[in-house]
């Protein structure tokens, strides 16, 4: 099975700082990590490969330093990595990003599965995976928690608010992954040695036949009006006492507030 996993390097913080002037992320001084959902995507890909054979290639679009995220994935067990990096990609919104990633998948050819995290923890749009399926003209399965493969078709669980759907599908597919039941595997010494000894290929716009009108800032119709951290409304209150007293007090308060 040939699997491509798309990963994004994101700032390691739950409260991302936004530049109030440009409305973009402040990246200075914030350590970078692999987007946690993408690590689950990689774990899923590695499990499928370990069980059914084939190869896992990780790709990322980003500045040259995003190679660190790809090396981390190699250290965890991915077979190959490609960085998509070009000034022409700068300023991409989700549409331009998904187009660029799709062009890289096209160039690879013969890809059975493209696996993405359900969303990145910085932008939280959850758009890139589904948009890639549209660009590639293949099916998509989103919010997936398990995948079984019987040699021909995939059977996946797609999480819903209440329960999950069991879906049968055929490759090629784009799949987006939620938090799995197990933690992503830890990097190994062998993987780490490989990750830092290998040359990670960098593909530019020319390498993947990018139409400049569809990539980077020019290919990005999204206009960001404002991004902000919502202010906390009111103070939280912790009700003390044993559980029965605390529950009674809570019910009283909810009644007073006319919530109950």
């Amino acid at each position, binding site marked *: 099975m040939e699997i491509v996993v798309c990963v994004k390097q994101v700032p390691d913080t739950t409260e991302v700082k936004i530049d109030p002037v440009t409305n973009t992320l402040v990246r200075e001084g914030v350590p970078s990590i692999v987007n946690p959902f993408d690590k689950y995507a990689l774990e899923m890909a590695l499990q499928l490969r370990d069980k059914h054979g084939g190869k896992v290639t990780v790709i990322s679009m980003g500045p040259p330093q995003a190679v660190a995220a790809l090396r981390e994935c190699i250290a965890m067990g991915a077979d190959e990595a490609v960085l998509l990096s070009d000034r022409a990609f700068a300023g991409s919104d989700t549409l331009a990003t998904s187009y660029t990633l799709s062009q890289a998948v096209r160039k690879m050819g013969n890809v059975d599965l493209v696996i993405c995290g359900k969303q990145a923890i910085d932008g939280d749009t959850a758009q890139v995976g589904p948009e890639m399926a549209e660009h590639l003209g293949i099916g998509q399965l989103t919010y997936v928690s398990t995948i079984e493969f019987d040699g021909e078709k995939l059977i996946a669980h797609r999480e819903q608010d209440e329960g999950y759907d069991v879906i049968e599908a055929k490759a090629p597919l784009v799949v987006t992954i939620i938090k799995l039941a197990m933690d992503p595997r830890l990097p190994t010494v062998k993987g780490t040695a490989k990750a*830092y000894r290998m040359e990670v290929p960098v593909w530019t716009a020319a390498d993947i036949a990018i139409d400049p009108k569809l990539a980077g800032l020019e290919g990005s119709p999204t206009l960001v009006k404002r991004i902000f951290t919502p202010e906390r409304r009111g103070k939280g209150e912790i009700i003390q006492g044993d559980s029965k007293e605390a529950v009674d007090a809570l019910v009283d308060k909810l009644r007073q507030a006319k919530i109950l």
Partner: protein
Amino acid sequence: MNFTVSPENEGIRKMVREFAEKKLAPTIVERDEKELFDRSIFDEMGKLGLMGLPYPEKYGGGGMDFVAYAIAIEEISRVDASTSIGMSVHTSLCSWPIYKYGTEEQKQKYLVPLAQGIKLGAFGLTEPNAGTDVGNASTFAVKEGDSYLITGTKVFNTNGGEAEVEVVFTKTNKEAGLKGMSAFIVEKGSPGLSFGKKETKMGIRAAVQREVIMVNAKTPASNILGKEGDGFRIAMTTLDGGRIGIAAQAVGIAQGALDHAIKYAKQRVQFGKPIATQQGISFMLANMATKVEAARLMTYRAAFNKSNDLPYSKEAAMAKLFASDVAMSVTTDAVQVFGGYGYSREYPVERLMRDAKITQIYEGTSEAMRMVIAGSILR
């Protein structure tokens, strides 16, 4: 001159830090409190490739250098010095003499499973009456047919009773002094080998140290390392390398304490501002950071020399002497930064202070380090 750690070794640091924080940090408080040795930790480290880092891949190792090894020990010690001593004794004191002095057959049989982390290793040198005075050892081995029968008791034996493989030092000729010592690979389960009491300790409480008791313990003659009489030289050169592990452990303990102290000093408000902004505390933190950095450079230097076939006996002794003093002073200062909370078991710095003390004692006391250094500079 190049003081930069290679990207590959920084990758090892990142990898081991993730392992330590995810797998060791959540349980170390309980393991320390209850003196629990958890073998499954070493099994997992074996799977990740951490139990044979500096040995060639053909012997099941990671094919990395001793700087990578020092960094790995440092990162584990930053979180859990009990696990790092188990790893250090296994790697530096048990696997290394087999790698260096073993026959190809011995390497295949013992080094490969040790480096893969399938087997755990130990090192039996210290006896009740032979600490720094190694030559006073009374354990004795007599040859009988194609076996040696070993009799004697080893104490404070790290991984003792848990390890499947132990490098044991004995006299084989009582009249020949230090030249009458020999080294053997002894397997757990050998007839005549048993284990005595487990030490109850001030620090590194999640590591295990036991008595190893041998009464005519039967060991195949083919398990001798080198030949009869090589034991003292094997012990001394092995300990030279082991000291890099202990120096790295001391650096890691000190770094852990410093990291906790910095974080706490930024949060703790007294007199209306964080104590980190008080000069009394900030200067203390600056001194701590400087000491840790100096200890780290000495340790990496010794590890670099070992990796590059340069002399490292004096360098390793200096690194251990200095780094262990740094670990003691920095952890003591970290407790001071925390004030009353530092003395409480609610916070990790008191554990790090208890763990630090042993680094001035084992694998050669600070006094023994001065003997090694003086012997080297006064030659």
